């Protein structure tokens, strides 16, 4: 009970910080103090944050390493963009975006559920390899998918555009490797921030509910969890599905922020999966606010360093290594503990100075 109150406080503080950051960014943007590069990053940062929250649920609470979360993001992105484009002229903007959001989330959850059935029988490295493969399969299937619509209905092909056999009045919705073009750009920074807050609250409530306790119990000790009567598979499935659904929300946001949506290695392939995993690990496994901070810093950093041209990836990797050492290396952890440099002691010091004042 006391623990719950404490963590609720932490959640409220995180939400307040997000709101303050949002206001600062929004003011800077409207007064023209934000470079176009940075303001172009605002929505993608929210999208990546959502995927990171989803992956953190999987890694930190289910205790299983997934390298395929970009795949679920991809499913959410393409299903919602497909819907938005197909109904661009028939449904008004606001209900269409809400429906697209629900559809993207639903399909990402469905794929998560279906993939979890075989995959969760494995554990550790094997699970990581299989999820990695699934992420790639999703991306590659979308790359050869052609879908068009005309007066005869929907046409689907996995060969090329010609074999669709569209009537002259038909429109091409998904054009293979060129993906979906002309999705309405409806994702705004405000929507992104609201979705991130919503995802934070949902995951927080989930891990502190009866189901979440069961998931954590399975992570802590599977045999003991079985002997107190917990159905292991059921709870693993629930957690993995929710995790995939949140990644799907990130995908919807991502898809509605760009004009032409394609599935490449950089946006939905293993590169992205690994990058999200980097956010989660550096932000702290099981720590949702930490993943947000890591996502914001590590997405903004390469863009801020763009002026340094060739040296920027070098600096980026050095920052990554430094962060990792700072958070995980035993010697540095010991040094920080000896010199009062842990987050706990620093917070304590700040409190004390405040009391003195």
């Amino acid at each position: 009970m006391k623990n719950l109150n404490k963590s609720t406080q932490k959640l409220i503080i995180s939400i307040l910080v997000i709101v303050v950051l949002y206001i600062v960014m929004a003011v800077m943007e409207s007064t023209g103090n934000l470079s176009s590069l940075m303001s172009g990053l605002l929505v993608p940062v929210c999208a990546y944050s959502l995927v990171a929250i989803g992956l953190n649920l999987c890694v930190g609470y289910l205790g299983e390493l997934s390298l395929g979360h970009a795949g679920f993001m991809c499913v959410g992105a393409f299903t919602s963009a497909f819907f938005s484009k197909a109904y661009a002229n028939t449904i008004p903007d606001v209900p269409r975006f809400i429906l697209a959001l629900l559809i993207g989330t639903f399909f990402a959850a469905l794929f998560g559920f279906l993939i979890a059935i075989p995959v969760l029988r494995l554990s550790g490295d094997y699970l990581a390899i299989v999820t990695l493969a699934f992420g790639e399969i999703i991306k590659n299937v979308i790359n050869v998918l052609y879908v068009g619509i005309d007066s005869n209905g929907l046409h689907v092909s996995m060969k090329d555009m010609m074999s669709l056999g569209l009537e002259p009045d038909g429109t091409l919705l998904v054009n293979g490797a060129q993906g979906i073009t002309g999705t309405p750009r409806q994702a705004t920074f405000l929507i992104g921030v609201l979705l991130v807050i919503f995802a934070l609250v949902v995951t927080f409530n989930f891990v502190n509910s009866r189901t979440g306790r069961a998931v954590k119990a399975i992570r802590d000790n599977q045999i003991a969890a079985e002997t107190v009567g917990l159905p292991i598979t059921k709870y693993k499935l629930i957690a993995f599905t929710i995790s995939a659904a949140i990644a799907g929300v990130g995908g919807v946001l991502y898809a509605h922020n760009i004009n032409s949506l394609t599935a490449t290695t950089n946006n939905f392939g293993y590169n992205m999966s690994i990058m999200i995993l980097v956010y989660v690990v550096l932000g702290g496994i099981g720590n949702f606010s930490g993943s947000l901070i890591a996502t914001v810093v590590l997405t903004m950093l390469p863009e801020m360093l763009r002026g340094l041209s060739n040296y920027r990836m070098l600096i980026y990797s050095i920052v990554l290594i430094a962060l990792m050492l700072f958070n995980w290396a035993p010697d540095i952890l010991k040094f920080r503990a000896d010199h009062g440099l842990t987050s706990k002691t620093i917070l304590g010091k700040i409190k004390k100075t405040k009391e003195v004042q």
Partner: protein
Amino acid sequence: MALLEVTNLGISFGGLRAVDEFNLQIEKGELYGLIGPNGAGKTTVFNMLTGIYKPTDGKIFLDGNDITGKKTADINKSGVARTFQNIRLFGDQSVLDNVKIGLHNSFEYSTFSGIFRLPKFFATEKEMDKKALEILSVFGLDKEADILASNLPYGKQRELEIARALATEPQLLLLDEPAAGMNPNETRDLMNTIALIRKEFGVTILLIEHDMKLVSGICEKLTVLNFGRVLSQGETSAVLNDPEVIKAYLGE
């Protein structure tokens, strides 16, 4: 009818016959001891009773129902709970949450009402807290309810494991070496606790133990295992005076 009836139970791991022709009958309300030298197969018997191992031969009946080879979670639901020789708590969760996980199947609300904090969530969580604290107070652990389970001292971790097992409302409680690693004082406290929970919760208890003092002090009946086979079985005093048992424990 006996609460637990085990007939001709046996298990082989490859060429190794770990337990062979194991028979056991425990009446409702009994406190039964399973003893034997190291490697005799005691924990293997527990693992078969709780479905962690599937027995190669034989049958297990709980209250007349066949539970042989069922899933561990289902065996728990039909009324068997256990503790482990090497303590298996949910270390990253609070003492209270450990017991609440034990209560998982007795209280219910959907994942949906948990995520969106519907009224059912608050009502059920409140009831669960109350019930969990009630169980913890039997062990005097209610003051430590908010501590992480892994931060409890060793003896209390063992008690918490028993509390968690009791939260699943078992008919039969299996205790795997509850006094392992305890000093004489802690062992005496544990004997009192076991007597207390038997009275308070009305459970039948089967325990594995090395500590002869504990066994002879509280168990009414004993089974002695040696090399996977039953060496002697019956009333405690008779079994402990059995020359075969003395031979197995002390040598000739």
